[in-house]
């Protein structure tokens, strides 16, 4: 088989849709166009049946009850509803404090910022050097006013997995709701809302080989989590998220969840093997550093910093690989990633970071090609790097009085 270029290695931004999911969605679009909320005819009943099957498929993957699953447009919306909805409902019972991490996704951080405008108090906790939450600090930060803790399961930039079971246990002990953004975790790592004491979970469709524009929010029933809806409308999804449920997208998410349930362990064995091969080859180039904990991570996300090389020129050099830079250097801000910053990564290394993503459709042939290409370009770019020369001469870059511009 000849290799098709460029190779897709940006599985954290989105995933290709599984062909089985596409077939299912086409079938639904062709035949089952009814509005799932129509009660007066069979078109509606059939569509509703499809939606309810999908709800069970999503629930099964996280050991939840189907009545605890609410369809939304995606994880961003789920995170907004969960954090703002809980904060605003429990505001009346004198709870006005929210805890989250500095390394959360922008939609969590910005939902919290919005709440601060409304008078809520938010603690954005720093993380340890390996990207993981400091459980002692978390415990100390909880006050009688804390209503909700929002901590993501798998970090989108660096792939580390937070200790969900420990966080859940702590939250339950302290009587605080535990919300987790599982956009990068759902369908990729085993999740169990009972074992992990998760009260709310945000889910995305397009990160698990399903369609874009669909996601879900899990909201625990026992003990019940109440939320104030942030949407006004016809009261669909039991008032949590008004708006017509898109049957074909929901069917796609449902089937993608079912496939993940059946194939997660074999997918992970394969991805872990490819990831290890890639990790070993890249670190052998020397002065290539993995960002985030080496062991507590999802194998399909490796974020490396290449000392002496700037990230954007590296991305240009390896343009046959579709990857993304942790650094926002293509934007006008020129700020390196806030996530790497929170890990205490030096600015120059944060500027050189690149995230490589692998998934269900990544082949060993592609990994071999990527390794060869990266090795060649790292050598070439280092040969032209003044910083690399200085490092070779043993000059400490921090000892130089750089003029920032």
């Amino acid at each position, binding site marked *: 088989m000849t290799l098709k270029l460029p190779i897709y290695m940006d599985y954290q931004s989105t995933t290709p849709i599984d062909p089985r999911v596409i077939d299912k969605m086409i079938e639904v679009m062709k035949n089952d166009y009814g509005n799932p909320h129509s009660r007066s005819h069979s078109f509606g009943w059939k569509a509703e049946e499809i939606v309810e099957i999908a709800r069970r498929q999503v629930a099964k993957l996280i050991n939840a009850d189907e009545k605890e699953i609410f369809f939304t447009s995606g994880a961003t919306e789920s995170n907004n509803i969960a954090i703002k909805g809980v904060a605003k409902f429990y505001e009346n019972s004198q709870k006005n404090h929210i805890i989250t991490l500095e390394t959360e996704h922008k939609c969590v951080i910005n939902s919290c910022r919005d709440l601060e405008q409304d008078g809520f108090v938010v603690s954005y906790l720093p993380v340890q050097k390996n990207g993981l939450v400091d459980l002692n600090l978390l415990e100390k930060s909880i006050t009688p006013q804390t209503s909700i803790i929002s901590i993501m399961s798998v970090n989108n930039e660096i792939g580390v997995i937070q200790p969900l079971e420990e966080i859940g246990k702590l939250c339950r002990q302290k009587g605080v709701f535990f919300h987790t953004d599982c956009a990068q975790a759902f369908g990729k790592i085993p999740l169990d809302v009972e074992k992990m004491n998760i009260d709310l979970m945000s889910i995305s469709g397009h990160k698990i080989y399903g369609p874009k524009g669909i996601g879900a929010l899990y909201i625990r029933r026992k003990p019940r989590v109440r939320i104030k809806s942030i949407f006004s409308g016809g009261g669909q999804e039991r008032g949590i998220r008004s708006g017509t449920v898109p049957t074909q997208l929901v069917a796609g998410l449902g089937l993608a969840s079912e496939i993940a349930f059946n194939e997660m362990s074999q997918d992970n064995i394969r991805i872990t093997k490819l990831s290890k091969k890639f990790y070993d080859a890249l670190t052998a180039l020397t002065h290539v550093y993995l960002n985030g904990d080496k062991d507590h991570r999802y194998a399909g996300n490796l974020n490396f910093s290449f000392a*002496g*090389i*700037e*990230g*954007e*020129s590296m991305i*240009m050099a390896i343009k046959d690989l579709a990857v993304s830079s942790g*650094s926002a*250097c*293509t*934007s*006008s801000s*020129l700020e*390196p990633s806030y996530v790497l910053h929170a890990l205490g990564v*030096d*600015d*120059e290394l944060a*500027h050189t970071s690149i995230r490589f993503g692998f998934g269900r459709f990544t082949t060993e042939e592609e990994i071999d090609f990527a390794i060869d290409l990266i090795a060649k370009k790292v050598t070439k770019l280092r*040969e*032209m*790097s*003044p*910083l*690399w*020369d200085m490092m070779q001469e043993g000059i400490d*870059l921090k000892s130089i009085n*750089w*003029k*920032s*511009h």
Partner: protein
Amino acid sequence: MAYSKELLEHYENPKNVGSFDKNEKNIGTGLVGAPACGDVMKLQIKVADDGTITDAKFKTFGCGSAIASSSLATEWIKGMKIDEAQKITNHQIADELSLPPVKIHCSVLAEEAIKSAIEDYKKNKNS
């Protein structure tokens, strides 16, 4: 972001990558930028007694535009008198490479690198 043909050519086949011994009397070295900002340029010139730049080399840590800007700068100044090279502006470099607005600072850095190398050469010569 779509880059111009000129920029990609300089990025993919950069001219004059390398170093001179910075301690030699006829060499001027400019080191500008900062690692924390994502760009560092080292530009060196070799100058004849009559003030002609006979050779130039660079090494750059930075994005594609920064590498292309420094490659172009070294090409241009070779054969120039130092007084002429002194007059090269970032606009000329940005125009030649059609740099997008967010990358204009790369051409500024290249201009600074030329000026800084000339200054260093003068200091070296008189020391």
